[in-house]
């Protein structure tokens, strides 16, 4: 059966027509389709999406997809990655045509991400520890805590609730302040930053903590170490923990639309 579709992994900066081996999804042979100094990294397939109800198989496919992207990155430098299951109807000529039509945009994007990788920065906090620190550092709050000795129960309860509320509000302010401070720092040490404002999923390792901030960063190779050191400092602060992962291809910082 003729394979009249092409599965797209990425667009890379290269003039070469090369075979990368049977490293693709379902052991498909992966190769490049160049146009001038850019090339699509593809494998031939039927022009239908990869679909399955088997969770494990789907996960394997995604791993294979990312493996090819990583391999292309090692070989050609930072690539413009496609999400899983980007399939084009047509043959290599159609791919060439698409590259030609979008050459300016693709070349500019490749230049923008050259020598950069995407990293994920997540900062977690320990509710109790930060509240204790607030309590220690604020004499007003400390006094509130001591006041309940020898008091009538109703009044004592109200005062303890007062303290809890003030700690809760104080913590919210402190978290906002830290969020801004860390955001600024991460911005200064990265080329581009996106704040993931709606991500609240906490990995198992940090289950006893809550999310303070989450960023996707595009970082030049030369700057990664500085960013790592700065994040280390935050990680060493009492009550805070940093999860710094990567490098990934710049999924969050490029959008290769398909016609």
């Amino acid at each position, binding site marked *: 059966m003729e394979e009249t579709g092409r599965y797209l992994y990425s667009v890379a900066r290269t003039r070469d027509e090369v075979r990368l081996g049977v490293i693709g999804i379902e052991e498909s042979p992966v190769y490049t389709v160049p146009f001038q100094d850019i090339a699509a990294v593809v494998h031939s397939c039927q022009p239908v999406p990869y679909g399955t109800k088997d969770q494990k198989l789907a996960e394997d496919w995604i791993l294979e997809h990312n493996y090819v992207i990583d391999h292309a990155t090692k070989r050609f430098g930072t690539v413009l990655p496609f999400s899983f299951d980007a399939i084009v109807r047509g043959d290599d000529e159609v791919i060439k045509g698409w590259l030609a039509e979008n050459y300016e945009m693709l070349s500019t994007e490749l230049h923008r991400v050259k020598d950069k990788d995407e990293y994920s920065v997540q900062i977690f906090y320990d509710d109790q520890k930060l509240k204790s620190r607030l309590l220690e550092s604020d004499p007003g709050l400390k006094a509130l805590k001591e006041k309940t000795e020898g008091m009538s*129960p*109703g*009044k*004592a*309860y*109200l*005062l303890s*609730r007062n303290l809890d*509320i003030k700690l809760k509000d104080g913590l919210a302010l402190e978290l906002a302040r830290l969020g801004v401070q860390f955001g600024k720092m991460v911005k200064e040490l990265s080329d581009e930053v996106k704040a993931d404002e*709606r991500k609240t999923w906490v990995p198992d390792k940090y289950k006893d903590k809550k999310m303070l901030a989450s960023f996707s960063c595009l970082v030049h190779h030369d700057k990664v170490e500085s960013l790592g050191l700065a994040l280390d400092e935050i990680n060493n602060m009492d009550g805070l923990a940093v999860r710094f992962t990567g490098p990934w291809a710049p999924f969050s910082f490029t959008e290769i639309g398909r016609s």
Partner: protein
Amino acid sequence: MAIKIDEDNLKEGLLGLVVALVEIVEEVLERQAVRRMESGRLSDEEIERLGSALSDLNEALEKIKQDNNITDSVRTVKEGLDQIADDVVDQFLNPERWAQDGGDGKVSLFRGKD
């Protein structure tokens, strides 16, 4: 987004939701009580009565949660409602972002052209 209620037992789930909402109201009452106390407008007796009433409410809610084993699901509901509140406030602040996202099942008060 899904509010995680214990779906295995709908009665438990509804109870969890109700308790979560009462706890939210409880916090509002506590804040109001503290404000009044700090304003100096309450007598010692009034402070004591207010404090006792709130303490009783809190005890009753804790007992309901323990007796029905819904402490965790109540916490989850409150965290979910927190997230929804955040999203709604964010919609007011960043309407363009929500216009881009549109139609992925997230909470939207401004259905606009839909």
